[in-house]
């Protein structure tokens, strides 16, 4: 096949002024703004975590071994996500669906763990309105959990699109990469939360 024929058969690609994919550029701009969003929530938590007039204090309530396992689960979901991307880049749709389902399952395990943790905290006397520590903790981790939940729905949508032939070999990898960027972002936010919120000792 000549170079001209190859160019004619290549998937259609919009020309942009940057030479980059505009949707991917928008995703990175969105993730940059999300850094600011979670940065504000984490800053607020750090400011208020020692302000406990009523209810349990952070070091009395955190279960580090339990949270370590759920952090590990979320971290490994990033590995399965990149393996899903690698699969569709090879044109392996079955592999894509297996790795996407594995990622969604690991995300669901993480969310299940968070629901259990929240329930345990409420039973131990820490509610959203108990103290400013409680408010800051539940708002920050709750927003993170909401992001993970949205990510799970997006992963399952990709699985559905793949099953019904809506992910073509031409634009499928790009769609999977965009959802992957979002998924890895919620993972790196948790990397920061796990260290700053759970592991660094309070006064």
């Amino acid at each position, binding site marked *: 096949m000549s170079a001209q024929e190859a160019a004619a*058969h*290549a*998937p*259609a*690609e919009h020309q942009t002024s*940057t*030479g*980059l*994919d505009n949707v991917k*550029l928008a995703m*990175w*701009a969105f*993730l*940059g*703004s*999300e*850094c*600011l969003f*979670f*940065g*504000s929530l*984490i*800053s*607020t938590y750090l*400011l*208020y975590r*020692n*302000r406990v007039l009523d209810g349990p204090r952070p070091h009395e309530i955190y279960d*580090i071994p339990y949270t*370590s396992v759920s*952090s590990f689960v979320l*971290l*490994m979901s*990033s*590995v399965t996500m*990149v*393996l899903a*991307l*690698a699969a569709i*880049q*090879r*044109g*392996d749709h079955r592999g894509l669906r297996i790795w996407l389902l594995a990622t969604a399952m690991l995300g669901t395990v993480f969310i299940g763990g968070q629901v259990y943790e929240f329930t345990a905290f409420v039973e131990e006397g820490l509610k959203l*309105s108990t*103290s*400013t520590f409680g408010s800051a903790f539940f708002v920050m981790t709750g927003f993170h959990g909401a992001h993970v939940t949205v990510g799970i729905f997006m992963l399952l949508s990709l699985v559905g699109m793949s099953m019904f032939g809506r992910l073509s*070999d*031409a634009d499928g*990898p*790009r769609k999977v990469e965009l959802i*992957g*960027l979002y998924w*890895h972002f919620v993972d*790196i936010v948790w*990397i*920061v939360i796990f*260290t700053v919120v759970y*592991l*660094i*000792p309070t006064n």
Partner: protein
Amino acid sequence: MTQAGIEHSPREEEELAHHPDPRQYIVVGVWLAIVTALEVAIYYVDSLQDIIVPFLLVFAFIKFFLVVTWFMHLRFDSALFRRLFVSGLVLALVVFAIVMTIFLARGGAVPEIAGG
């Protein structure tokens, strides 16, 4: 040009040429697991409690860096994506610095929240 018989646009071909292969992804995943294990292990070492914060921050930075560079492909993609993301990170750190400056300027007193 094709990979496994699939037609890719020239831009996708260029990106694919730089993306890691599955084996490299798994190696990065193993390193992430090792760093997480170290992070949790030093949490329980009593003799390190006075200097634990720098260790934990370094471990968190390593994990953050590995995910962003290898899994999010910032190591291989356009510098413009990197600049957008780093801008957000820097702004977040500026917000944090402003909050802490206000906190210290008030002598460590936490601003009141209604009902708090």
